[in-house]
C-alpha cells in the first residue's frame, strides 16, 4: 500500500472483472463511415485509471461503470458518475480529479465535462462535487506539482 506500512482503508475490497478490449467492427474499419463518440468510448478512457490505493483499476473496484457514463456527441456533453468504495473514502477528490484530467486530455475541447459522485455514496459528496466543478480550483490543483505527479501515476499505463 502507499507509504510502506500504513494500513489500507479497505484492505480486501470487492473486485469486479475487467471488460475486455472493445472488439473492432467492420464498420469501424471502413474509412468512410463516421463513428460517433459513445458511452463505451468514454468508459474505455477512464476504466483503466489506477486507484490511488490499490493495485487495481477503477473498473475493477466498480468505482466507474459504463451505465454511469452519459455522453451526447451532438451537444458535446459528457457526464460521469463515480462511486467511492466506502462512504468515507479520503481519496474521493483525487479519484474525481484523475477522471477529470483524463477526460480533459482525451476529449475534443468542444465537450463540457461533468464529473461527480454517484448520489448518496459518499459522506462529503457535496463538497467533493463542488471542488470538481470549480474550474479554477481544478486548474490550481494541477499547478501543484506533487498532486500532478500523483494524478499522472493514476493515469499511467499499468506495468
Amino acid at each position, binding site marked *: 500500500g502507499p507509504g510502506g506500512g500504513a494500513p489500507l482503508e479497505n484492505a*480486501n475490497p470487492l*473486485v469486479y472483472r475487467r471488460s475486455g478490449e472493445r472488439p473492432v467492427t467492420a464498420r469501424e474499419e471502413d*474509412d468512410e463511415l463516421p463513428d460517433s*463518440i459513445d458511452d463505451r*468510448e468514454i468508459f474505455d478512457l477512464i476504466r483503466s485509471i489506477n486507484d490511488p490505493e490499490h*493495485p487495481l483499476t477503477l473498473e475493477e473496484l466498480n468505482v466507474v461503470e459504463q451505465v454511469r457514463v452519459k455522453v451526447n456527441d451532438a451537444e458535446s456533453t459528457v457526464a460521469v458518475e463515480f462511486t467511492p468504495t466506502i462512504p468515507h473514502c479520503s481519496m474521493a477528490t483525487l479519484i474525481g480529479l484523475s477522471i477529470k484530467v*483524463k477526460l480533459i*486530455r*482525451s476529449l475534443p475541447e468542444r465537450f463540457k465535462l461533468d464529473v461527480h459522485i454517484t448520489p448518496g455514496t459518499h459522506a462529503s459528496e457535496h463538497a467533493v462535487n463542488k471542488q470538481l466543478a470549480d474550474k479554477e480550483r481544478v486548474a490550481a490543483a494541477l499547478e501543484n506539482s506533487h498532486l500532478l505527479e500523483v494524478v499522472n501515476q493514476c493515469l499511467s499505463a499499468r506495468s
Partner: protein
Amino acid sequence: CLENTDPRMRGRGIQLLSQVLLQCYSLLQEKEVLHLVLFYENRLQDHHLVIPSVLQGLRALSMCEVLSPGLAVSVLKAIFQEVHVQSLLQLDRHTVYSIITNFMGTREEELKGLGADFTFGFIQVMDGEKDPRNLLVAFQIVRDLIAKNYALGPFVEELFEVTSCYFPIDFTPPPNDPHGIQREDLILSLRAVLASTPQFAEFLLPLLIEKMDSDLQSAKLDSLQTLTACCAIYGQKELQEFLPSLWSSLRREVFQTASEKVEAECLAALHALSACLSCSVLSSDTEDLLDSFLSSILQDCRHHLCEPDMKLVWPSAKLLQAAAGASLRAYHCVTSSVLPLLLEQYTKHPQSSQRRTILEMLLGFLELQQKWGHVEEDESTLLSLRAPVCSVVFSALTDPSVQLQLVGIRALTVLGSLQGFLSPSDLELVVDHLIRLALHEEDSQSSEAAMEAAGSLAPLYPKVFSGHMVPRLEEELQSERQEESPCDHRSLRQRCLQALAAVSTHTSIVRETVPVLLQHLRKVQKGSEAGNTQDMVSVCQSLHRVALQCQQDAESCWYYHQTVVPCLLAMAVQAAMQESTHLLLAKALLEEEVLAAMVPVISAATTHLSPELATQSVSHVVPLFLDGEVSFLPQNSFPCSFQPFEDGECLEAQRRLVALLMAFVCSLPRNVAIPQQERLLHELLALSCSCNCPFTATTAAKCFAGLVNKHLAGQQLDEILQLAVNRMELGLAEGPCRMQALTLLLWVTKALVLRYHPLSSCLTDKLLGLLGDTELGPAAADGFSLLMAESPDVLHKGCHADVRIMFRQRFFTDNVPKLVQGFHGAGPDVKANYLKGLSHVLNHLPKPVLVTELPTLLSLLLEALSCSDRVVQLSTLSCLQPLLLEAPQIMSLHVDTLVTKFLSLTSSPTMAVRIAALRCAHALTSLPTTVLLPYKARVIRALAKPLDDKKRLVRKEAVAARGEW
C-alpha cells in the same frame, strides 16, 4: 639489489625476480622451489612497499607442481600471520585470493590438515573486502570450502557473517565498466554461498525473513529466490523453528503486493517450502510438520475462498495451489479440505460471475492433479468427489454465461485427461455437451472452445468420439431442414465442418471424417444453391486443418494423401471437362477462390510424405497433367481428354487446374525426382508467358519458380533459366503480355534470390530498371513486397524450398544503394516507384539491421514522408515508428522535420495513415525530454484535432499519443 637499504630498490629487485618466476615457474626444480619459498616467506616481513612483489612471487610458486609437501601450508600460514590483506590494493588482494585458490586446487589434503585454522585464516583475509572482482573470487573460495568439506570448526557463524554482510547485493556497475561484472553475477555467486549448506540455516533464515519486508523490491526478490534455493538442500530440521514467520511473511507479501514478480517468487518459495517438508527424511521420533504447516495455510486462506468477489480470493487460491502442487501428499492434504468447500461454495453462489471464479479455482486444483497422472483409487479426494465435480462442471456448460461455459470446457478437458476419472456414461454426456456447444451455442468463443476440447480429448477416447460424435455431425451436416432460414442452416453446416476437422486428431477418427468431408464437397458441387463457393471453401478449410493434424503421423498422412489428393483432382478434372465440352455455366469448383482453397489442402497433404511415397504419388500426378493419364483417379471415365497444356480456347478451364499441380509438385521434398521435369518446366514457362487469364498465368509462373528454386544446379538449370530470361525479355519489350512477363520475372527472381543463385542479381537489376517504366513501374515497385515477404503457398521453408536465412539482409545490401541512386536519377513521375520499392524492402527487414543502416537512409525516409502515395506514407511511417523507439539518439537530430511531417499526416484522408502518423507522434515521446520540450505545447495543441476525428480507431491513437505528451 635485494639487500639494498632503500625499500624501493629492494622492491624492484623482488619485482624482477617475481616476473621471471611467473614466466618460468614450470621449469623449476623441487630444491629451487624450496629455496625460493623460504626466501619469499621471509620477505613477507619486509617493508610494506615490497609486499606486492613478494605476493606476485608467491603466486608464481603456488603454481609449481614440484612444491614439496608442507610448503603450501607454510606459505599460507605466513600470509595469514604477516600480511594484513585488506590494507593492500585491489590487485594485490586479488593475488592473495589467487594463491589460496591455486593451493586449494592442488593441495587440498595438505590444507585440510590445517583444520579450522585455514577457514579462520581465510575469514580474516576476506573480512571487509569491497571490490566486486575480488568478491567473485572470494565467494568461489567459500563455496569450495563448503562443497569440499573443509573443516569449519567453530567458525560457521563467522564464515556466514563475513559473506552474508553483502546480502542483499546492492551494486550497480559503473558506466563504461571494463570488467563487465553485473549485479546478477554477484547475486548468483553470493546465493550459491548462502544456500550451500544447512549449517547456515539458523543464521540465514532470520535474515531472509527480515529482508522480505524490505522496501526495495530487488531485496524482496533476492530473499525469496534465496529461500527457494535453500529449500533444495534444507530439511525439516532447519526450517522447523522458522516456519510460522516464513509463512506469515509470504502471506503478507502475496496479499499486499502489486507486483506480479514478487507474487510469483513468493509462490515459488512456498512451493519449495512445501516440497522440502514433503521430502524430508525424519527420524522415528520426530513429528511430521507438513500437515501442521499446511493446516496453518488452510486456516489463513480457506475462508477467503468463500468470498469470490473480494480481492483476496485469488491470492489465497494461488497460495493454496502453490503449497498443494509440491507433492502428492500436500495435494491430498489441501484438496481434501478445499475441494469440498469449493463445490459447496459453487452451489451457494448462484451468480455466474461468482461461479466462474469458484470454478476457475477448482480448475487450478484439477490441473495440479494432472501432474501426478492417473487417479489413485485409494487416497484420492477427487475420485470420491467424482459425482459432485462432474455435476458442477456440467452445470457450468449449460449456464447462459459464456465466460462460465469457457471455464467449464477447460475443466472438462482436464477431467477427461485424468485417466479413469470419467465413467463411460460420463463420457457420452461429455460428448453430448461438446456437440451441443460446438454446433448450437450462439457465442463463437464457446463453440470454438468446445471444438478444441473435442480435439484434445478425441485421441484419449477415439472410440467414443468416432462412434458417437462423428455420426452425429455427419447427420447434422446432411440434414435438410426446411423450417430454418437458409442463413442459419448455412452457419450450422459451417460449424459441423469445423467440428469434424477439430475432432480429427486420431488416425481412426481421420478415417471416419475425411470421407464425410469429401462426400459433402461432392454434394455441394452438384447442388445449384447460391453461395456454393463459400461452402466449398469451408470444406477445403476443414480438409486443410485435418491435413495439418495428420502430418506428424506417417500412417494418417499417407492415408490422407491417397484419399484426398486423387479425389480433389478427379472432381476438378471432371468439372473442367464439363465446361470445355458443354460450355456450361462456370462451375463453382473452378472459381479462383475455391481452387485457391484447395491449394493448401494438397500442399499440406504432400509436404510430410516420405520420399518413397511421394515418388509413388508424383509418378501419377505429373503424367496426368502432361499426358492426360487419368487412370489413377477414383472416377476415371471422362467425356474427353485432359490436356491443360495444349492450345485451344475451350481448354481455358483445364488450364486453371495448374494451381492444383503447383500445390502438389511445389510441396514435394527436395530429394524426390520429378519425372519429365524439363518438359514440365517448358510447358509452364510457355503457359505463364502467353496465357490471357491472369490467375492461370500467375499460377504457372509460381509453379515454374517453385520448381526452379529446388532444381539441382548445373547445365540443365542454366539452360532453362536462359530460356526463361529470353521469353521475359521478349514479353517485356512490347505487346499484350508485358504484365505476364513482369509476373514471371518477379517469381523467378524470388526463386533465385532465396537460393543465392548467381543469376538473381541480373534479374533484380532488370526489375530495378522497370521501376522507371511509366506503365509497369508501380507494379514492379509492389513486386518488391512479393520478393521480401513470405509467400503462403510456394517458395517457403514449409514446402522444402531452398531458402537461405540471410537472404533479406543480402538483398538489402546489394540493392538498396541502387534504389537510392535510381531515386535520385529518376524523373518526377516515377520517383514514387523507387520510394515504394524501398519501403517494401525496409518493411521486411529485421529491426536490428534496420537500426544500424538507418543513418544512410534517414534523409530518404524523411523525403518519403512528403510523397503523396499512401502506400509509401504508410510503410515509411511503419518503418520510422520502431526506429524512434530503438534509436532515439539518431532520430533526435531530425526532431523538427519529424514533428512537422507526423502532425501534418494526422489529417491525411486515409484512416490507416492517420493512425500510423499518430503512433509515430506517440513514439516521439521516447526521445529525450530535453529534445521534446520545445515542441510540447505545439504537439499537444495539434493533437487536439484528431481527438475529434470521425473514426474511433483514430481517436483511440490520438488519446494515447496526447496523453503521453
